């Protein structure tokens, strides 16, 4: 189960993290703590500046008189629309969303596998004759190419693919597959670099080509981890497919967009429950496979030998069947990729967008908007980090087996209840799409950066809380056991055992989601929140592709900057 943590850690690590040169003994510790203090100061300053920019401390932020409208929304949760025709509609939409999630994930895994190999250090550092310079250039190039898809939101990808391919199932598949593929490639490359290289170098030494050495020496030992990550990604793809409905992809997202436009809360809730059902099912499947893998590993470590895992095999067959069924369900035909029409429209789009234009607001205006976006993301991630950490502890699996302290049945039941309740809250938080959160918050807040930031914060809390809870589950139990054995109370175990061990991972998750939050600001920009997201929305609505290209370049720049910053922060925390 520790693998998830490593993926997330890998997701949050950066383009280029060679270990810093080992400082001289003695000065190392003070140097590090000085750097840490520096970061702490910088982060605090960034948060304060962002909070001020967001308007905190300048007059009223909340306006309680709108609470009625907010309550109306949640009151509708108990009476979702359940008549037969709407349920049938929801059922079909659910299958469509599932199909897109399956196909998008399949594509992202394919991209991830190829991109992951090509951007791993292992690939570029082997080959006897290769020169160091060329290797470095190749590696840096492969990794920076991956930043571009990650900096652009799926919805924006969707709109651009719509121009190229028209109304076609391939649009949603590519819109999910490409950005997710880039993230997956990054994670896969880290996983591959962590995998033992001995079989691979042995094959190379025996005269195998680099390609076959990768295929037979590097991928097989890494495969289980890669597969488990694929399952995890699938769950994210379901949420993503539900947002993509806007661009003509159909499914839950399309129905949600329709019902949301006219604020049919009861319909929205029916659709949200369907979405929750899908993500819970995917979560359950992936945790089944992951825990089976963990058990298998333990067995083989104990000398049981590697054996076939029926659950994994079954899952693979099932996945293959799902891919087939999904392509049938949405009528996927990849021939459209090389159709002349698609190329024609693609080239047309490029010539419309090139050269990028600065627009009316000028460079200064663009930078201000980029600042707004950055401030929004910082406020969002700060709040989400705090809330996520709060939820993580109750949402984690209660200590089990030998580690359980003797407790009354009542308190165990209470603990289980707390776990289920907080997990449910987290699922709901992340199932409600950020644009819906933004509107709900606007009912009780004044327009500006803050409601947008809070909307992202609430949504991100749902995701972060889950990731953090999982990392609490995966904590090394031995130090905690030792503390308990010395008679420490549960509170003390928590303060001195859990928090110090979990903190670095929490930070890693937080930084990873910060990058995602930058991208997500695009979808809340429209609700009075401003920033680059609103600008991009206007530009796309006006078919100003040259302007949109500039805005996207800025967003990618921000993503890159966040990526580099978080790598530096992580290095100093480690």
């Amino acid at each position, binding site marked *: 189960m520790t693998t998830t943590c490593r993926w997330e850690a890998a997701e949050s690590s950066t383009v280029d993290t060679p270990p810093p040169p080992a400082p001289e003994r003695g000065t190392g510790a003070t140097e590090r703590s000085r750097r840490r203090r520096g970061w702490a100061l910088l982060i605090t300053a960034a948060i304060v500046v962002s909070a001020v920019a967001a308007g905190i401390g300048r007059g009223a932020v909340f*306006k309680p*008189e*709108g609470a009625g*409208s907010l309550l109306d929304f949640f009151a509708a949760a108990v009476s979702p629309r359940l008549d037969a025709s709407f349920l049938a*509609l929801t059922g079909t939409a659910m299958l*469509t969303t599932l*199909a897109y999630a399956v196909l998008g994930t399949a594509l992202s895994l394919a991209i991830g596998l190829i991109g992951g190999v090509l951007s791993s250090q292992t690939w570029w550092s082997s080959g006897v004759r290769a020169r160091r310079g060329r290797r470095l250039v190749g590696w840096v190039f492969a990794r920076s190419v991956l930043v571009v898809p990650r900096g652009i939101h799926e919805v924006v990808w969707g*709109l651009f693919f*719509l121009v190229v391919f028209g*109304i*076609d*199932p391939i649009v949603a598949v590519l819109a999910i597959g490409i950005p997710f593929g880039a993230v997956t490639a990054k994670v896969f490359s880290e996983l591959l670099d962590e995998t033992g290289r001995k079989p691979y170098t042995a094959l190379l030494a025996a005269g195998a080509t680099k390609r076959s050495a990768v295929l037979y020496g590097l991928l*097989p030992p890494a*495969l*289980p981890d890669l597969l488990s990550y694929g399952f995890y990604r699938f769950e994210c793809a379901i949420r993503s497919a539900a947002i993509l409905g*806007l661009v*003509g992809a*159909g*499914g839950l997202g399309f*129905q949600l967009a*329709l019902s*949301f*436009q*006219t*604020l*049919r809360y009861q*319909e929205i809730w029916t659709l949200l429950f369907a979405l929750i059902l899908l993500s819970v099912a995917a979560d359950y499947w992936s945790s089944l496979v992951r825990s089976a893998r963990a058990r*298998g590993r333990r067995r083989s470590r104990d000398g049981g030998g590697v*054996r*076939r*895992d029926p659950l994994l*095999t079954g899952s*693979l*067959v099932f996945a*293959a*069947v799902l*891919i*087939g069924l999904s*392509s*049938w*369900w949405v*009528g996927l035909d990849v021939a459209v990729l090389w159709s002349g*029409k698609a190329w024609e*429209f693609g080239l047309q789009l490029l010539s419309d967008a090139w050269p990028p234009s600065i627009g*009316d607001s000028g460079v200064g205006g663009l930078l201000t908007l980029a600042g707004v976006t950055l401030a929004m993301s910082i406020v969002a991630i700060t709040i989400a980090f705090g809330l996520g950490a709060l939820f993580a502890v109750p949402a984690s699996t209660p200590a089990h087996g030998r580690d359980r302290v003797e407790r009354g049945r009542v308190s165990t039941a209470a603990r289980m209840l707390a776990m289920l309740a907080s997990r449910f809250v987290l699922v709901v938080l992340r199932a409600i799409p950020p644009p819906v959160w933004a*509107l709900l918050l606007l*009912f*009780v*807040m*004044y*327009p500006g950066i803050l409601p947008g930031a809070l909307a992202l914060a609430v949504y991100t809390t749902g995701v972060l809380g889950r990731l953090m809870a999982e990392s609490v589950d995966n904590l090394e139990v031995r130090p905690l056991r030792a503390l308990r054995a010395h008679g420490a109370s549960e509170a003390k175990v928590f303060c001195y055992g859990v928090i110090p061990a979990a903190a670095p991972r929490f930070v890693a998750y937080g930084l990873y989601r910060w990058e995602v939050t930058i991208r997500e600001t695009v979808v809340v920009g*429209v*609700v*009075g929140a401003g920033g680059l997201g*609103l600008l991009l*929305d206007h530009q796309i*609505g*006006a*078919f*100003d592709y040259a302007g949109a290209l500039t805005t996207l370049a800025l967003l990618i720049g921000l993503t890159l900057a966040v990526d580099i910053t978080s790598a530096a922060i992580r290095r100093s925390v480690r």
Partner: protein
Amino acid sequence: MPRVPLRLIALTAIGMLLAACGQSPGDPRGSAGSDGEKVLTISAIPDQDPQVLQRQFSTLSDYLSDRLGVAVKYLPVTDYTASVTAFQRGDLQLVFFGGLTGVQARTQVPGAVTLAQRDIDANFHSVFVANTKTGITPFDSVDGLSKLAGHSFTFGSDTSTSGRLMPQHFLSKAGMSADDFSGNPGYSGSHDKTAKLVEAGTYQAGALNASVWDELVKTGKVDTSKVREVFRTPPYHDYHWVARPDLDEQLGDGMTDKIKKALLELDGSTPTEKKILDLFEAGSFIDTAPGNYAKIEQVAQRLGLLN
């Protein structure tokens, strides 16, 4: 590493792909028409209760198919930009556009034909609404819009004709610019959201489609003690059907005229026709001309919405 029965997986996958030759229920391109058959693809983005039409579109496509003698498939699209793009690419051949999106579509597809509009579209209005706490009282002349200065304000979707374009036009007639509001004007995303946000006091004033507003008031979905209409704009032309110029070429001579006739002859005399008109909230469809949208085109040009 468990051994994976690759052959089994491959076989299953191939089997599934073979099975994949049947109809696809989730295909966004719709399912009407087989190879070689002539198909007319249509779509509509109504303002009011779009979910009703989008979920019951077969009524319309069946009627048209009946009248035209070709297969008709309806592709539901919610996004204004997406529908214009799809029209420009030829994926949609006949679309019920909003005023602005229709103009955008005709700019991008030179020669596209305006076919018909609803009876209510010839005489369309926007309303300006204000939160009652602002104390703004109803007024009759466009100049009265200057009363909104210093208040916060929201439009609807940024490419909506009645929720953004025409309100902005009337505001500038009254000498108001975006800077005169308190804070930046918002873009709520839809007419219903504009009404709700002004009701909640998030924005002190806003502008939306008059028929959506009337419906909200009639059904009691907005609290008129909190938000009230302060100004109804002079009439303008809004929604209209636009067809691609190559329709006759692709579907047979005279197709464009046949479609127009089929639309204009909808009079509600049969239950189906009645239902279609109800879905569009229309009494009938009437003739229209490109000149009706000149004003919209001007404003759009000025706002940089035509590219």
